[in-house]
Each structure stands twice: as C-alpha cells, then as structure tokens.
C-alpha cells in the first residue's frame, strides 16, 4: 500500500509535466493548479484503498482535466467567450488518444515562467512552483523568505501573465537568443535549490535535481549552443556527486566518499563538456563544468589538480565575477601552494563574507599553511559556530583537532 511519502513522491515527480499539459489546454494558472491539487487530493483518498493505478500520471491528468472542465462550466456564462472555449475543449478532449500519453509541454511552461516581463525573483518562484511542484512554504524556506511574501509574488506573477497577455509559447527562433539565458539562469538556480540542505522536509532533493536536469536536457535539445550544453554538463557532473552527499545533510566535497560518485553521469557530463568546449566559445557554465570535471578526475581532495582549477577560477572571475568565485579561487590557489596570491584574494573578501562559513574555513587553511595555527584555530571555531549542518561541523571539528591546539583561551600555544 502507498504510504503518504510514496504518494508525495509520485505527485512531485509528475507535477511539472501535468501542470504544463493542463496549462496548454486551459491557459489559466489558477484553474490548472486547482485542478491538479484536486486530482492529488482525490488520489490521496482513493489510491491507498484501490491501489496505485498502472499509469498514475494519466489517472491524475484525467481527473484534473475533468475537474477543470467542471469549474469552467460552472463559471461560464451562456454565449460568452468562456463558454465557447469550454465547448471546444470538451470536444477536443475526445480526440486525445486513449494511450494516456501526456505531451511534454514543460518547455513552453519554463519560457512563460521566465518571461522578461516578470521580475527575476518572480520567475524563479513561479518556475519552482509550477515545474518543481514546491509548495509556497518550501520556496519561502529555500529563499530564506516569508511565506506571505512568496505567495504575493506568485499571485502577482500569474496576474501579470494573464492581464498583460504573456503567451504560453516557446518563443519564435529569432527571439530565442534573447530569451534563453534567463531560462538557463533559472534552471541553474533550481538545481542549486535541490543541492542545498533542506532540513526536515518531505521534499526529495533528487526530484528537484532531476527536474532541473530534465529541463537542461530538453533546453539543450532545442538549442544546442555551447552554454546550454555547458549547463547540462555542469548539472550532470554536479549531480554525479549526489550519492556521496549524504541523505539528510550535505557532506562537504573534501569529506565525500568518491567511490559513491555516479560514474555514468560523470562520463556523460564530460562528453557534453568536451563537445561544448570544442566550439571555442567559453562561458560561465562551461567553465564551472570544467572545474567540476577536474574534481571528478581526482581520487581525493588532496590529489586534485588545483593549479588547473585555480586557472579556471581565474577565467571565471573575469566572465562571471562574484565573492564566492573569488573565495573558491583563493581556496584553489591555497591548495596549489600559491599562498601569497591566495592571501591577496582573501584579504579583499574580509569585509563582505562576514557570515559565510566557507570563508573562515578557507582562511583557516591559509593560516594553517602559513604556520599561524592560533589564527587558524580561531577561524575554524568561527566556521563551526556558523555551520548549520552537523556533517559539515564534524568535518570542521576534525580539522580543528588536527591543529593540535586544545585550549581556546591560550592562543599563544603551539602544537605539542
């Protein structure tokens, strides 16, 4: 029998595809979402008793469509546009092949959600809600925001789509170069949400990651440009590490059991990366993918080709600069033994990454290599204090213990 968790997993896996298909028919976000919710509710009621149907998605689609049509009929006025649309749809519904194959309208949905007429925060929230199936609460938690704010953001976005006439379409070929970068950015953001630690939720990170991967794949098929392929490569290489990241909390890269990495995804990712790089049009996603690929070459953290990674981060800091990129660059330099350069970069960050745990962990390593054990200790303590993840904390604690400094109150003591 289905447990509630099983059901939720099925729902989340199908949510994006089903909603996209419903939208293609009904062109109304609220109507489509309500209908899907109703179908899920019905399934929760019926499946535990009658067993899960052979094709759960088709079952959900049928119930949702029926629900939406009922809603439309109730609100339609005689002879109005809405009534005419209903009748058309009722007729069309007959024509859908009995096989229950649900067309994949997800690309349409993501281009609509990522329309430039919507604010980017709205694009991300809407994509997560519709394609990822995240609840408003889950989105709020992912963005460290409040539920009412996210709810308002979603409502405003849907209203704008409806009132301003944002079409439910994949843009025409001439427009694609303008519209694609934003879609890639949103897919990337979604993948990162799956990657971060969700504490105590029923959300499976795997579903969201798979959703992002699927979107990256179909986007690539539609537009096989180097950066699209670069994004796909990046997500594959990143996701290959998921089995080693731990079930409930994220185990840092340094501590991961690399034998658990998915070699199949790594090979696929590397193939895509090589193809993309062959076009000699490097971009941020390709470079990040390359960095990831260098990691997959190494048996462990220390055996990594850090010089190569440092070089890649140097390029990335020109194309897509950010504090985190600078920090990662510094880490790579430090690991490669270029302490002076590493220190120069870290100094520039001292003011901005004040509450960012990896900053202190990185600086601690620099201090350690410079022989400043007390300072390293202080920074590791700070990192431990900021850590919100016990796997991470345990790793930091081990590093701190390795320094050999017992007493925090006596910073002048050397390792015995």
């Amino acid at each position, binding site marked *: 029998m289905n447990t509630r968790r099983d059901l939720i997993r099925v729902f989340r896996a199908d949510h994006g595809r089903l909603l996209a298909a419903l939208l293609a028919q009904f062109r109304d976000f609220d109507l489509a979402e309500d209908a899907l919710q109703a179908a899920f509710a019905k399934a929760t009621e019926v499946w535990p008793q009658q067993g899960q149907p052979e094709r759960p998605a088709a079952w959900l689609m049928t119930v949702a469509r029926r629900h939406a049509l009922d809603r439309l009929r109730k609100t339609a006025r005689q002879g*109005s546009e809405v009534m005419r649309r209903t009748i058309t749809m009722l007729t069309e519904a007959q024509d859908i092949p009995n096989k229950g194959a649900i067309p994949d309208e997800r690309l349409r949905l993501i281009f609509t959600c990522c*329309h430039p*007429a919507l604010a980017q925060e709205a694009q991300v929230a809407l994509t997560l809600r519709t394609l990822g199936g995240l609840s408003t609460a889950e989105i709020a938690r992912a963005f460290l925001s409040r539920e009412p704010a996210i709810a308002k953001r979603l409502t405003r976005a849907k209203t704008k789509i409806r*009132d*301003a*006439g*944002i*079409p439910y*379409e994949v*843009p025409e070929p001439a*427009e694609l170069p303008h519209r694609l970068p934003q879609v890639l950015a949103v897919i990337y953001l979604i993948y990162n949400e799956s990657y971060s630690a969700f504490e105590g939720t029923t959300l499976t990170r795997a579903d969201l990651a798979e959703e992002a991967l699927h979107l990256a794949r179909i986007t690539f098929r539609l537009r096989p440009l180097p950066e699209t392929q670069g994004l796909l490569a990046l997500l594959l290489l990143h996701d290959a590490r998921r089995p080693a990241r731990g079930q409930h909390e994220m185990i840092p890269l340094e501590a991961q059991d690399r034998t658990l990495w998915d070699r199949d995804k790594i090979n696929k990712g590397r193939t895509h990366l090589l193809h993309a790089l062959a076009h000699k049009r490097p971009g941020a996603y390709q470079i990040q993918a390359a960095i990831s690929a260098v990691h997959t070459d190494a048996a462990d953290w220390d055996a990594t080709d850090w010089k190569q990674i440092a070089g890649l981060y140097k390029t990335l800091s020109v194309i897509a600069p950010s504090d985190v990129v600078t920090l990662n660059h510094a880490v790579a330099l430090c690991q490669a033994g270029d302490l002076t350069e590493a220190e120069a970069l870290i100094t520039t960050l001292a003011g901005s990454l004040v509450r960012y745990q990896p900053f202190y962990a990185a600086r601690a390593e620099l201090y350690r290599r410079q022989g400043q054990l007390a300072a390293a200790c202080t920074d590791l303590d700070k990192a431990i204090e900021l850590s919100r993840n016990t796997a991470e904390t345990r790793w930091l604690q081990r590093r701190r213990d390795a320094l050999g400094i017992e007493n925090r109150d006596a910073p002048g003591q050397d390792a015995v």
Partner: protein
Amino acid sequence: MKYLALIYADEALGDPDDLMDQYEAYFQEITTAGVYVGGEALEPVSTATSIRMRNGERQVTDGPFAETKEQLGGYFVLECETLDDAIKWASKIPSAKYGTVEVRPLMVFDEE
C-alpha cells in the same frame, strides 16, 4: 488584445534629424501589418497642464503630473495577440533607441 505604447524620451537630448521619416516608416509598417489602432505625437512637456479635483476644489498647475527624467512624447494603440507581439512592435518605435516605451494592455470591460 489592445496595448497602449507610451513613448518616453528625455526632451533635453533633442530629436534626430530624420525622426519624422523614421516615424513615417514605422507608421507604414504597423498599418500594413494591421497592428495600428491609433496614435498621436504630443507637444512638448512645456505645454502640459495638470488638473486635480480635491475636496470639490479644482487645482490647475503648470507642467506634467510629475517631473521625470524622461517625458511622455506620444503614444500608439496597437492590436496584438500577445505581449510578445506588442513587445516586438513597440521595440521598433523610433524613440525606443534612446528613450523608453512602456507597454500596457487596455482594460477590457465585459459587455453584459
């Protein structure tokens, strides 16, 4: 759907010499495409007068409703199926090259 395209530009920048020709060409394009519903150029913002009724009293002031970096210079009403079409046509408005065109759908009132 009908969209209003409001054309804003910084009057201080002045107009290119062939602006009229550009607009004439644009007008031809949108009429041929069946997109043109209406449109006018406006006299400069120095000719504007603002009217407010407050507590039954009429307040008339010299100038636009607000001082803005770019000022309203004209408008078009365009008949387009989707916002994407409206964006496409609005982006061809000559002043868009140095000003801003705001696109907004006209409100539709259901006839009962």
